[in-house]
């Protein structure tokens, strides 16, 4: 495998060269984890500029931000900004897509770093999470509220620091009631509509606060992370490498397998394990089976929210066929748990193959009928066109992912940009639309559904022979790498560093919805209350994904939140909506 690595040319050298040209000696170190993954270490004060340059000048998208307590290794905290750098489509050059990790070390006696959020808004949630979990302050971050840790968590206790607490430590609740401060929108006639955390639009907990004037939403704020359980800490303490795959399945009950693959492939990449080709095909098939059921779920909900319950029931009826397929292939309807480090646990034999081929045929014709019924229902188009607009510029600033992004004109799909599993071995195409609205996002899901079916069929047809499991490798401590998967809702990114005791040292998993929540506020503005559930459902949010793990926020300063400037102005003047400006 070492050989393989040398054969493959490095991708992304030009970005490192560009950084060196601009920042010179500030690029302290460069190290490659994979042919298309490079870490550059920079001094703390250059961090915002380096990230901003990659993001806006080199076509970068913020994939994730991982903080790591490396004090046992080198005496410092470290923070990694992970960008997928894709170049600026100049000329007809072949795209050069690489993951660039910008790393900076943070001294433990002064746990703070300059916030990148003012330059790259996409970093906002990540930096709030780092503050919660590690107690490292982002200096210049406008939002001082907790993100992940519950309100009743004590101040000054940071779960992910290696020396703070056992993973089982449960402090006494410090407050009896929630005390999260929602943003304060004032203006004549503005009414607050609180929704949740238990509410009727969705199954999962999340507290929304809509600020409305009459029927119109002026702004929205939300408190999520009601589902934070502490998975990342669990993976570092109780479980071994193979057991974490089952935990990864439970990050999300809908797209869990995508997380599972992302986690396994991050470890495999770090260790340069050659996963057998047949296993790669099986993973691809299962990922697409998961997309089938997930998209049917979302199409069903879209019907439900516009009052077309016949469609809702019908989509859920055919969805059971996708569930049956999953059960046949994995033994489980929802939590597949099929991956091990090095391959998969189950092969596809003739019996399963025959059955899924038959089910795929049924699904194809039934869903085609349902989608045409859906689109011919006039109500649907009326209710979804131009609703919940995600303007391309907002999308560019916040790095949303999946159908949410592809509905705003960006044909960005990790399966093509950073091919993994077998996606570069079977032909298929990316679906994108430029309507920027709920309708576009719904149509994308419908088209992707059929794309998934043909992907599965092609994978079955060209499935290679050979083993499905690589065994007998050794775990090497402190190697790290990224794993990435285009889940039904967008890319899932896992950053894993291996430990020296058969346990992972640090696992940072970022689910797709994490990147889709922050821009939601912009999508809600300017619409009516009655459209809110529809808009929320159109990003197909997954609360539990996002709320995996997190922590505490440090200081509950009574500071008022400084909203984005534009938003402030809009709140005061309540005219000239920023939405119209773009």
């Amino acid at each position, binding site marked *: 495998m070492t050989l393989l690595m040398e054969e493959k040319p490095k991708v992304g050298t030009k970005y490192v060269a560009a950084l060196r040209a601009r920042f010179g000696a500030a690029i302290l170190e460069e190290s490659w984890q994979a042919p298309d993954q490079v870490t550059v270490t920079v001094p703390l004060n250059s961090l915002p500029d380096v990230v901003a340059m990659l993001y806006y000048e080199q076509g970068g998208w913020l994939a994730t931000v991982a903080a790591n307590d490396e004090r046992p290794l080198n005496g410092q905290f470290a923070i990694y900004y992970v960008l997928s750098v894709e170049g600026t489509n100049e000329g007809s050059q072949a795209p050069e897509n690489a993951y660039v990790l910008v790393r900076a070390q943070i001294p433990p006696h002064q746990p703070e770093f300059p916030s990148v959020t003012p330059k790259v808004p996409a970093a906002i949630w990540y930096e709030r999470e780092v503050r919660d979990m590690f107690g490292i302050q982002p200096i210049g971050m406008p939002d001082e509220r907790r993100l992940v*840790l*519950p309100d*009743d*968590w004590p101040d000054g206790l940071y*779960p992910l620091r290696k*020396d*703070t*607490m*056992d*993973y*089982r*430590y*449960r402090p*006494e609740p410090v407050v009896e009631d*929630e005390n999260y401060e929602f943003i304060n929108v004032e203006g004549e006639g503005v009414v607050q509509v609180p929704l949740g955390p*238990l509410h*009727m639009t969705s*199954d*999962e*907990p999340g507290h929304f606060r809509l600020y409305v004037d009459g029927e119109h939403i002026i702004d929205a704020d939300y408190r999520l992370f*009601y*589902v*934070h*359980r*502490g*998975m990342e*800490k*669990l993976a570092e303490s109780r479980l071994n490498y193979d057991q974490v795959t*089952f935990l990864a399945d*439970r*990050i*999300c*009950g*809908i797209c*869990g397998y995508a997380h599972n693959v992302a986690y396994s492939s991050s470890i495999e990449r770090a260790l340069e394990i050659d996963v057998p080709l047949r296993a790669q095909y099986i993973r691809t098939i299962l990922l697409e089976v998961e997309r089938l059921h997930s998209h049917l*779920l979302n199409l069903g909900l879209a019907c439900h929210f516009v009052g077309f319950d016949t469609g809702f*029931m*019908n989509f*859920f*009826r055919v969805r*059971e066929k996708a569930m049956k397929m999953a059960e046949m292939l994995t033994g489980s*309807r*929802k*939590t597949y748990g099929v991956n091990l480090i090095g391959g*998969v*646990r*189950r*092969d*596809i*034999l*003739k019996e399963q193959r025959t059955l899924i081929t038959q089910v795929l045929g049924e699904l194809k014709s039934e869903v085609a009928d349902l989608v045409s019924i859906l689109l011919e229902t006039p109500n649907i188009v009326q209710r979804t066109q131009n609703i919940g607009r995600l303007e391309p510029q907002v999308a560019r600033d916040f790095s949303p992912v999946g159908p949410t992004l592809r509905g705003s004109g960006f044909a960005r799909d990790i399966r093509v940009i950073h091919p993994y599993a077998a996606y570069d071995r079977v032909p298929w195409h990316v679906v994108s639309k430029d309507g920027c609205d709920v309708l576009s996002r719904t149509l994308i899901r419908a088209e992707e559904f059929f794309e998934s079916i043909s992907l599965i069929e092609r994978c079955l047809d060209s499935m290679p*022979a050979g*083993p*499905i*499991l690589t065994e007998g490798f050794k775990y090497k401590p402190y190697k790290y790498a990224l794993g990435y998967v285009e889940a039904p809702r967008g890319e899932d990114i896992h950053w894993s560093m291996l430990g020296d005791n058969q346990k992972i040292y640090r696992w940072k998993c970022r689910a797709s919805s994490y990147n889709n929540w922050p821009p939601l506020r912009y999508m809600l503005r300017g619409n009516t209350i009655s459209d809110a559930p529809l808009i929320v459902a159109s990003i197909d949010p*997954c609360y*539990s*994904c996002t709320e995996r*793990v997190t*922590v505490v926020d440090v200081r509950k300063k009574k500071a008022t939140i400084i909203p984005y400037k534009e938003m402030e102005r809009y709140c005061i003047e309540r005219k000239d909506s920023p939405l119209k400006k773009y």
Partner: protein
Amino acid sequence: MLRDSVSNLTVAEHSKYSIHEDPAAGQLKAALLKDIHRSVYVYRVDCGGCNGCEIEIFAALTPLFDVERFGIKVVSSPRHADVLVYTGSMTRSMRVPALRAYHAAPEPKICVAYGACGCSGGIFHDLYCVWGGADKFIPIDVYIPGCPPTPAATIYGFAISLGILGQKLKTSHHVQGEDEHVSLAHPQVPYLLRVQLERESRRMAGYLYGKQIADTFLTMLEENPNQVKENVQAYLDKQADPRLSEIVARLVTVYDGYQGAV
């Protein structure tokens, strides 16, 4: 200041937060069950689930499983509910909302712990940000295990909570008998050969199918060591599965290799 002692508030310590049910509630519940028959309103309280449970409850509602035919209907407010279904491992943030939902539902009410997390905290049972199951705070009447419970298990669980069906599972206590021994699998086949065959089969077909395929091969080997190749070929012809043939061909190679070495 490493806090390594497991504080783990015990159930008794939880009690200052948890709800103590009135002893008369049992009678009220029995009366309720008699009254509601086929008109049961269910409210779901997600206390930190991964969505798997929520979506399986959804699946139980929709046409294929259709719990509505039993009169079970999901409502969108706890104030309308006869049954509260608690999913998720009870995260810290959801403790207060969960109690609020409990108090909002009219008495008498039936509380169900749903899924491995709802029953005990599941894979998250001892984590810092969860309390480990709904019964730490809420008086639970019925436990539906599963991760997630399938729609069929869900329907059965509802039937139990409504007193329509009886409970099947009973706690068991096995004590080792005097002459209780583990029997060896395939005693006629040398252990090292068996391990090699099982390993190759696992590498090719995965754990479950690999085990089954190796078992079939070993059984044939035991039955008639001299005719094993002919018998295997006849079996493969009958199955007509190219992938199975590929895997078994590897096993034959392993077998030949072992014979050669001996």
